[in-house]
């Protein structure tokens, strides 16, 4: 356990170095990145063996006389520590070439400082074992990430995003305060261990409060609206860490809360599952509808949070239905997907950052043809896209396979659990299909075809640090997909301390995993064989090149390419009541029509919902009450008299 604190200290020291040496730009970046990464390395070195051995540890410190800072490690926290220590070093290395603006060196230093605080606080969130410690770390995480989002505060969009994020973070934290306080009111203790002993009927309310609180961080629908704003606003290495790791803290919280409460009611699992389905499907539909890569990726994070929640929900329903296999695979699948998603989502955000860096745009309608101009970014982005679509032989599939497997085990249930399980499987299928559609759109329009703007045409490959990191991550996506067994074992050891499933024997499943691995290898073998066969066929043959077949049209321009909006239109329209589309068409008039425009915009139903039913009425109500402070002393004295009269009535 001490090693972990050492690692956190080293990470923080790295961040502090960012502040101290900001005048020497390159030196600062080097020192910070190396120190922080070393800290993460120490952490990983500690966590990995512990996770596999399945040891637990506790440490507690006295704080402010009455409170204690209590840390505990069990398999769940150890598992979540993995992405926390694994992803940041990679994104930091990436940032070496990403943050190149020497004029913003102070800001870069500050960015590194809060980055290190974010890592440290996330580690502390996962380690903490009482309410105080947890909330302390949680709030530190919120505020440090707020500063990270505000890096480019010059743009008003970004400021709005930061503001929105701030409110959701604080609002969510308040709900957590309430949830924990409710527990405390029943148990009288700050300890996490006291959760299970509280009366059963209180648990549902507590869980729902905590679910909403954590959900606002994780980005469950409809509490997700800060995500698609904050992620485009943040610099890409920050989006990578926020989307890849930080929102998982929300998942961790939900799961931890569930474990601690250990509720008997099946309703909790059902709530989580249904939320997961809604979040997943709507997340991916909105992702499909967006043309801003980073926004799209943010919605895709919402979708993946949905998938993870489906996994957790399946697991919880398995626990309440005494179906150990279902519980085991649901949890394990969710865990593995957490891990996988942290890798490929960071990869994708870094790819998007690289594109933004070089092609100066994150709108896919303004990109195109980048695969040739940015080969490393393009290839790794392609791998990431395949992985996130959950397609074999890449990592995303393995996690989803486990969840599917768990869900299929749950088909033995009755009535509501059965129907929910069926719906879960079908939503997973729909999410998978839509995700493929979504990522073919990104890759196909941004990286393939012809560049749509001059900037995209002039793009070149990003710095070596960025390329190297992205390649490593792409390779690891493939590695996990082809050789999943160690990683599945990792997920299994992640859930070994969960009492409901700890006695489950997973050996037969490992056999299946080996088959999966074989199938993946077989596929790759066939793929290589076919490629060779194709090579042979083309030997000594004339290979011409020309322009694309224009179906008879002889003067093609790049603007004729299919647009992202059109690509997604039919699919998005299919979900119309939940995904409002606003079209504006000027129409063709007169005999010789002039220039005409057609515009289509998809608005987030949650956002408009908040606006229409929450903020607007609330603000207008507040505005109506402004007369209270209306400037005249006579009225003010009147208030005092009214107050006295009212109080005297209580006498």
């Amino acid at each position, binding site marked *: 356990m001490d090693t972990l604190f050492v690692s956190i200290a080293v990470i923080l020291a790295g961040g502090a170095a960012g502040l101290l040496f900001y005048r020497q730009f390159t030196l600062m970046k080097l020192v910070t990145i190396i120190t922080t990464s070393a800290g993460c390395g120490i952490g990983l070195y500690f966590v990995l063996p512990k996770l596999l051995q399945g040891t637990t540890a506790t440490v507690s410190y006295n704080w*402010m*006389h*009455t*409170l204690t800072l209590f840390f505990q490690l069990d398999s769940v926290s150890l598992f979540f520590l993995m992405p926390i220590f694994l992803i940041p070093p990679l994104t930091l290395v990436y940032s070496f070439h990403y943050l190149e603006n020497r004029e913003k060196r*102070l800001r870069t230093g500050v960015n590194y400082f809060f980055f290190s605080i974010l890592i440290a606080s996330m580690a502390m969130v996962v380690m903490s074992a009482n309410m*105080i410690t947890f*909330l*302390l770390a949680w*709030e*530190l995480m*919120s*505020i440090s990430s707020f500063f990270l989002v*505000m890096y480019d*505060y*010059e743009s*008003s969009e970004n*400021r709005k995003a*930061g*503001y929105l994020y*701030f*409110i959701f973070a*604080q*609002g969510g934290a*308040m*709900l957590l*305060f*309430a949830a*924990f*306080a*409710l527990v*405390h*009111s029943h148990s*009288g203790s700050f300890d996490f261990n006291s959760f299970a002993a509280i009366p059963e009927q209180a648990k549902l309310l507590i869980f729902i409060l905590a679910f909403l609180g954590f959900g606002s961080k994780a980005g469950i629908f409809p509490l997700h609206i800060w995500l698609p704003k904050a992620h485009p606003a943040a610099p890409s290495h920050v989006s990578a860490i926020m989307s890849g790791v930080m929102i998982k803290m929300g998942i961790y919280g939900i799961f931890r809360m569930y474990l601690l409460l250990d509720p008997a009611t099946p309703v909790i699992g059902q709530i989580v599952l249904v939320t997961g389905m809604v979040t997943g499907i709507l997340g991916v539909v909105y992702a499909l509808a967006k043309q801003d890569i980073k926004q799209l990726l943010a919605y895709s994070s919402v979708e993946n949070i949905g998938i993870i929640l489906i996994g957790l929900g399946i697991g919880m329903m398995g626990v309440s239905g005494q179906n150990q296999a279902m519980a085991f695979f649901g949890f394990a699948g969710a865990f593995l997907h957490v891990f996988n998603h942290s890798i490929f989502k960071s990869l994708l955000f870094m790819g998007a950052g690289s594109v933004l860096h070089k092609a100066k745009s994150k709108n896919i309608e303004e990109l195109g043809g980048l695969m040739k101009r940015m080969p490393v970014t393009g290839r790794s982005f392609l791998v990431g896209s395949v992985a996130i679509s959950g397609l074999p032989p890449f990592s995303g599939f393995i996690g989803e396979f486990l969840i599917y497997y768990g869900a299929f085990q749950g088909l033995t249930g009755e009535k509501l659990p059965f129907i929910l399980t069926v719906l879960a499987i079908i939503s997973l299928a729909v999410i998978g299909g839509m995700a493929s559609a979504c990522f073919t759109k990104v890759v196909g329009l941004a990286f393939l075809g012809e560049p749509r703007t001059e900037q995209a045409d002039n793009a070149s490959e990003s710095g070596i640090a960025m390329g190297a990191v992205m390649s490593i991550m792409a390779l690891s996506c493939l590695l996990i997909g082809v050789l999943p067994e160690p990683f599945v074992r990792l997920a299994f050891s992640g859930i070994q301390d969960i009492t409901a499933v700890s006695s489950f024997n997973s050996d037969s499943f490992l056999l299946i995993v080996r088959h999966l691995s074989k199938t993946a290898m077989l596929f790759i073998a066939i793929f290589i064989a076919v490629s060779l066969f194709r090579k042979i066929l083309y030997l000594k043959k004339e290979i011409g090149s020309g322009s694309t077949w224009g179906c008879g049209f002889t003067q093609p321009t790049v603007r004729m390419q299919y647009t992202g909006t059109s690509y997604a239109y039919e699919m998005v329209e299919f979900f119309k009541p939940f995904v409002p589309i606003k079209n504006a068409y000027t129409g063709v008039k007169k005999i010789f029509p002039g220039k005409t425009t057609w515009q289509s915009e998809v608005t987030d139903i949650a956002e408009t919902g908040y606006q229409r039913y929450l903020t607007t009425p609330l*603000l207008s109500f*507040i*505005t109506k*009450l*402004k007369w*209270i*402070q209306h400037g005249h*002393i006579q009225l*003010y*004295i009147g*208030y*005092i008299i*009214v*107050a*006295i009269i009212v*109080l*005297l009535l*209580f*006498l």
Partner: protein
Amino acid sequence: MLELTTIIPFFAGIIAIFMPVRVGRGILVLTALLHLQLTVMGWLGKITPAFPEYFAVTDEGMLILLVTSFVFLFISIYAVSYMSETEISSEPIYTGCTLFFLSTMTMVTMADHIIMLWIAIEATTLMSAPLIFLHRSKTALEATWKYVMICSVGIALALLGCFFVVMSMDLGGIHVPITFSSLGTVADKLDPVWLKAGFIFLVIGYGTKMGLAPMHTWLPDAHSEAPSPASALLSGALLNCAFLGVYRCHQLLYQAGLGDFSSNILVGFGLFSMLIAAIFIFHQTGYKRMLAYSSIENMGIIAFGIGIGGLATYGAMLHLIHHSLIKSSLFLSSGNVLLGYGSKLVNKTGNMAKLFPKTFTAFFAGFAGISGFPPFGIFISELLIIMGAFQQGRSVVVSIFIFALILVFAGASRLVTKMCFAPCENPEILVKENWARTLPSFALLAASLILCIWLPDSIYETIISAIATIGGSVNG
């Protein structure tokens, strides 16, 4: 002779008025240091009151005295630099009046006699009114008028409350000195109806001074018009002193077995203040007004916490300490902003992050602190208050409490992000920031931070024994 803490600033003030400006500044800082020194000696038990019939050392009083003295020291250091940059009618008047103000506030913290407390609080109004009027503008005049008028009415009502308390003694047939400490011992014999009536008038009276809604109306005006060091003093020290009056009365009622009655009133006022603050923080145009409303909110939180009882009282006491430190730091930073941009309007400011990095750091850190983000102490205090409230089973009121907190945060963070990050329309910096005017803010924030990491035993024990008198404890 703990009364020296009152007497010394008073005479120092008289001297300062007749001295040249530079000497006056020296006197100010020296007196602040001396005051802190005496206060600490008082804490250590080295000196005790010489007039026990009027003054007494109480736990809560000493706590507030320490906070006041500490905050005053840094504000006066700041004021030295601030006053040299700003145009005010007469600096000796400022120096003198702040010292008088300190003297009267010290008196409040030590007062044990009911009337002495009342006199001291009344005297704070008298001494602080010139501070608000220091800029001599029409708006300053208006603010002063409102401040004096509303507070006088309030305080007059508090006097009536004092009569009622005395009345309840007469009816109970008790013959003891009219001090809180002696009344506390015979509290159960006091006539309950008159005691309750007395409490109502006292809480309205002192609540006016403390800024509890709906008697808060003077507060935003006064805080926004006073020069920033004075605003910092008003918010960081005066409100606490007024709170002490309310606290003492609540204590008396608790000892008389009427705790429920007074608690409910405090909870009601607390929530109402928070909601009112939330309403006015939204769409607020002036940042000093915003801070003033935030003070109203925080006073509401403290009243709420005290009213809830149990664990929440501990939270409320911590909140009081940290609010003083952070809010005065914020007002000091806002002074820099005012000097820099020359306007109190949020719209005229902007891009502080680039134009005033030091002030920005202090201001934003203060804002984060006041909103309940760690590593500042308000995080713990709010958490404890919420926990305490749930523990008492007050789930409805605590829901309103949380709602108000979120609302205030949403309103305030909008303005703060605007000030800190939004582009400034005419980036003409009138006065540059310097360390002399930013270090005090940082020092106050650092104090909050340190108290959050390491709370000295004596402070902890003092809080515990203070809240024990109203039935609060850390174990619920």
